[in-house]
């Protein structure tokens, strides 16, 4: 458990949901096949602007997630490109079999957009926390699981998914995040983004993070750099297919790996990285994430509670290096 000493990041933060909304409107202006499908979530899926611009192309099936995903698959079958958008816990949990059978197994071009994942709905409690979504979606063969970490990457991921047919689950953060990727970074399926490290003496430990944890990993790297520990930070934008080359290079070239995700560790990013590492190049690992349902609290409180902070990442890096707890 980390101590609450972390200072808030000074960098300006941006809203990925806004980036998502603007990008799909821009895409819809370019391509008449694009439609948005939602479950009474016009507001929470940030589709108000889309509805105003394209009233006929916003389909609201009401509170009915199984129908939502099936309708999305049918729209794709009819030659449209549907963004199927809903709160992440319900989109994935309620309609998981539709995601499997109608989207992934049927090989339809459907873009499932999980809004407000992780513990974004802090005080609303574990029914509304989407911590299992990565485990569930990653288990489905062929489904592409994208976790953009900042608005620029959100735009690039959405644009990539429109242009490359297949079934996607795109996890769109609710809370504003700082820009983490270098300007001009695009999106490539299965390719991660290496963000920090490259110290002359080599890098000591790798931190592989996604979504809201990437900026915290960068902050942790800064803290450790001051102590002479060099950290390679990887933004694993695609959880499935995983960037195996980057993971195995990290296992070869650094002394251990820490993964960090706002999700349950069983089956998520940590499990994905660990299963690859243990079968090819075993190194010490620490998996940061949830292991149980969250107690009551705000998102920030819960992230602290589970050690999903820069301090928590610092501590995990030290453990991997054998320095023990800080």
């Amino acid at each position: 458990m980390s101590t609450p000493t972390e200072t808030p990041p000074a960098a300006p933060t941006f809203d990925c949901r806004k980036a998502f909304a603007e990008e799909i409107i821009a895409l819809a202006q370019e391509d008449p096949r694009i439609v948005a499908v939602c479950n009474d979530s016009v507001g929470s899926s940030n589709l108000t602007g889309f509805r105003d611009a394209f009233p006929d192309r916003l389909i609201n099936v009401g509170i009915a997630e199984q129908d939502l995903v099936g309708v999305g698959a049918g729209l794709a079958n009819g030659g449209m490109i549907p963004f199927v958008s809903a709160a992440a816990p319900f989109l994935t949990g309620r309609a998981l079999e539709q995601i499997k059978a109608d989207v992934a197994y049927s090989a339809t071009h459907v873009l499932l957009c999980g809004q407000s994942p992780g513990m974004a709905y802090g005080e609303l409690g574990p029914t509304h926390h989407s911590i299992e979504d990565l485990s569930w979606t990653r288990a489905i063969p062929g489904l592409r699981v994208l976790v953009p970490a900042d608005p620029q990457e959100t735009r690039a991921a959405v644009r990539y998914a429109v242009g490359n047919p297949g079934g996607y689950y795109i996890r769109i953060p609710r809370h504003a995040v700082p820009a983490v990727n270098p300007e001009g970074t695009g999106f490539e399926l299965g390719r991660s983004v290496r963000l920090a490290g490259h110290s002359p003496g080599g890098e000591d430990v790798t931190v592989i993070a996604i979504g809201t944890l990437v900026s915290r990993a960068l902050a942790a790297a800064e803290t450790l750099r001051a102590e002479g520990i060099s950290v390679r930070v990887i933004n694993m934008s695609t959880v499935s297919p995983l960037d195996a080359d980057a993971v195995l290079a990290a296992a070869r070239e650094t002394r251990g790996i820490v993964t960090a995700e706002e999700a349950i560790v069983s089956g998520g990013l940590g499990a994905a990285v660990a299963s690859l590492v243990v079968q090819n190049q075993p190194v010490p690992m620490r998996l940061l994430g949830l292991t149980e349902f969250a107690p009551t609290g705000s998102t920030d409180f819960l992230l602290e509670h589970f050690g999903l902070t820069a301090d928590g990442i610092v501590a995990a890096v030290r453990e991997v290096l054998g320095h023990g707890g800080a």
Partner: protein
Amino acid sequence: MLTTDRATAEKYLATRKELADAPVEDVIAALTAMATQIRLWDLEMINRAKLGHIGGDFSVTDILTTLYGAVLNVDPTNPTDPERDRFILSKGHTAGALYSTLAYCGFFPQAELATFAQALSPLNGHPNRTKVPGVETNTGPLGHGFPVAVGHALAAKLQGSPRRTFVVMGDGEMQEGSNWEAAMTAAHYELSSVTAIIDRNRLQQGAGTEDTKTLEPFPDKLASFGFEVRDIPGHDFAALLLATQPSTTGKPVAVIANTVKGKGVSFMENRVEWHHKVPSDEQVTQAVQELTNA
């Protein structure tokens, strides 16, 4: 992916053309012969594979025959034509009846039916659109086909296309909540191009539908959800031909096709155990006789 049996497909298309202007008696005679052939192939497939869902296959065969024999705008030589009508078999466990029908139309060679359920065959126990031309979405788990059909009909509406969407569901399958979600969407969006056909054989895997979870008053339920309801005898080709005509009310259409599970074989008819039972050699001989002499 299987590919078109061109000779069979061309014969099918020529027959469709002839029947389009033929007297209804001739259409019914052609459909009757087609249905018999489909049931015989299906029986042979299931007997060879030693698995399948023959009871539901035989109850749905006349519906499939009507659609592919006289109603659907599909072309086995161009199975992905964007302007084709869509047919979705939501009761995917009756894949055997669908495969036999698609082979009859030339979507793939009839010889492929011999591979049904064999290792690495494209003909899985439940249909797969990436392997079998003519299959529009992968089904098997119940309650999936109707939402997909609704989505397709929305696409057609947005595109201003006249193409139609048909989905066939089992009556037991209507116990799935997702179907009622889809029904509400179809009615709300006034998707009159959708025809949902319910194979009302009154039996599900374990028991009668009314003994398991009551569907009646079924026509009233569908009507109250905003459907134009057509309650018909489901093995009567004249009735099926009428019931598959476009909506007359601007509402989506629900056809309750009252059928007989195991239709055409005396020892299977209305018997719950024939949901997925494999006939013995003697039973196969008897079934062939009954189907051929009907």
